[in-house]
């Protein structure tokens, strides 16, 4: 079985950990996110074992710990669809990613799709797609598009 490291990146509180929990085998507790800034889980997608690095979210005081990105075969860019600025921030985050590990396969999760106050316009989705990213409206609450998100990333990594 082939193994691939992927990273979940995005702003603070966009639902990266909740999204991950919907899909992975829990190994460590969430306390590691606040202690060393990353939590690692694993998940099997077909014949590929994903080592999922759930990197602590970026906020006004801290940036993503880019050293955790090293060696990642792909990234999941996560934003909160009900908070447009977290969607806009994905461009900055992607910049950090590419500076550290280059242009790796990526998918975008516009999370919290179950909420009514959706704030992502079609133009933003079109922009992301033009960058070669697959965009999924996801919900960690009801599981919407969660497996599809990871499966697509694996497809892109193995392509």
């Amino acid at each position, binding site marked *: 079985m082939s193994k691939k*490291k992927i990273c979940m990146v995005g702003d603070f509180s966009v639902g990266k950990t909740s999204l991950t929990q919907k899909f992975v085998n829990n190994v460590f507790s969430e306390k590691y996110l606040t202690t060393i800034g990353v939590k690692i889980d694993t998940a099997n997608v077909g014949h590929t074992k994903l080592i999922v690095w759930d990197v602590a979210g970026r906020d006004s005081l801290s940036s993503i710990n880019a050293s955790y990105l*090293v060696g990642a075969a792909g990234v999941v860019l996560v934003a909160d669809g009900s908070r447009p600025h977290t969607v806009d921030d994905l461009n900055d985050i992607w910049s950090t990613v590419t500076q550290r590990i280059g242009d790796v396969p990526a998918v975008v999760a516009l999370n919290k799709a179950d909420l009514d106050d959706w704030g992502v316009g079609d133009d933003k989705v079109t922009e992301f797609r033009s960058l070669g990213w697959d965009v999924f409206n996801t919900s960690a609450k009801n599981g919407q598009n969660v497996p599809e998100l990871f499966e697509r990333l694996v497809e892109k990594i193995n392509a």
Partner: protein
Amino acid sequence: MSQIEELREIIIGDNAAELGDLKNRLENVERRTTDVAEVLSPAIDAEFRESQARLVSSLQKPVSLGLKKAIRAEPREYAEILYPVMAPSIRRAIAQALSSMMVTINRTIESATSVKGIRTRIQSLRTGIPYAELALRQSLLYRVEHIYLIDRETGMLIDEVAAADTQSLDSDAVSAMFSAIQSFVQDSFSKDSSARLTDLRVGDHNVWVAHGPRVMLACVILGDAPESLKAELYDTLDLIRTEYSAPIAEFDGDNKDFDGVPNLMAPLLQLQLKDSAISKQAKSGRAIVPLIILALVAGFFTYQWFDRSRKVSTVEYYLRQAPGIATTNVYWDNDQLIVEGLKDPDAKIPYGTLASYDLDENELRFNMIPFRSLEVDMELQRFRQEMDLPRGVYLSARNGRVFLYGEAPILWLSNNDARIRQLSADRRLDISNLSASFESVSDMLRDNFDRDDLSRIRMSSLVEDQLTVVQITGELEAGKLALLSALFAGSRWVSITARQRVE
């Protein structure tokens, strides 16, 4: 020659012979086989150089099938070929397994018999941690539980080996976490980018990490390992780096090219028991075993002493109760209980009672001097045997005296009178309530006198000299009176006061 043959001659010309030769070679199977054989080996070599994978792929199935068929057809031959290769490994494995088993058995015995072992068992019951795990922790100096070969860049696990019975989380996640911690520590505390986290300690566990340029070897140790293990860790890492340099450089998450790595890492799974713990526990175990044996021996002798004393007391008690037996000494002589004292020949030893107290008849030996016991019970027994008591006469004992009482036939009284007199003279027998029965006296009179005479005779009871006697009164002729006196002459049980009848 036909036109076609002419045309062929024109076209082929001198090459006709060569073409014929070629045709022969193609049609001749033997010749063709020889031709292929000539080029087969160089062709394989050339293909191997050209595309190793393609040749291996082509040959894999036929070679594999051929091998299987050949082994099935000639298993003995193949076994002989493989024996020199396999046997030493099998022997080593068996020896190692036996050695481990012996160590386990020894330690189990030691721990089971020692105070510490018992304490550990209690601790296991209290905490719910398996006894074996607690015992191992206490006796371990160190044990290498897990070795991870990790790709430094991605933190992905390349391969791992683990000691038996060690619990582990998802190894891929654990190795990634090692890598994350490495990055975290490096980013947080060290400005030197080449600095590496080499040691971690959490409780009883240590993690030693040997770093190479592309891979690291993380070693999870329970307890305190010697520094020499670090050197071994680096030696193993170097060996892996040397032998697997290409797969390491190309590693992208697939570890299929790292087949032999676990064999290289396995020697690092070392286990060292505490010398002091062994010796202390062994000493403690060794010390307690003689103590237990001593206690058992002491217990056995105490029980024997107690049992023998009990038997002596039992014999003394029941023989004291038995009439006609007086014991002076009761003691053990090897396996015989010797009873010394006096015994009336008529006395009976209560073997039945003694048997119920686990005292076998063969276990007892009596060294008794015979004597005549005057105990009441013995007297009673003896009188019953001697006198053959008739109906209506009874013997009983009261206040240390024997009473013979009732109405006895006059003939029985006459026959036993001497003995009764003797016994009563010794004051051993009270006969104050013994008398001759009227019926027996009357029967005797009826046998010797006619009806007229009998009508003149009266019988009554009279106490004379503390003896109840039958008094006969009346008037009889002189001859009959003489007969009457003769019938009861000498009997103190009948008193005759009859007078001669005057005509």
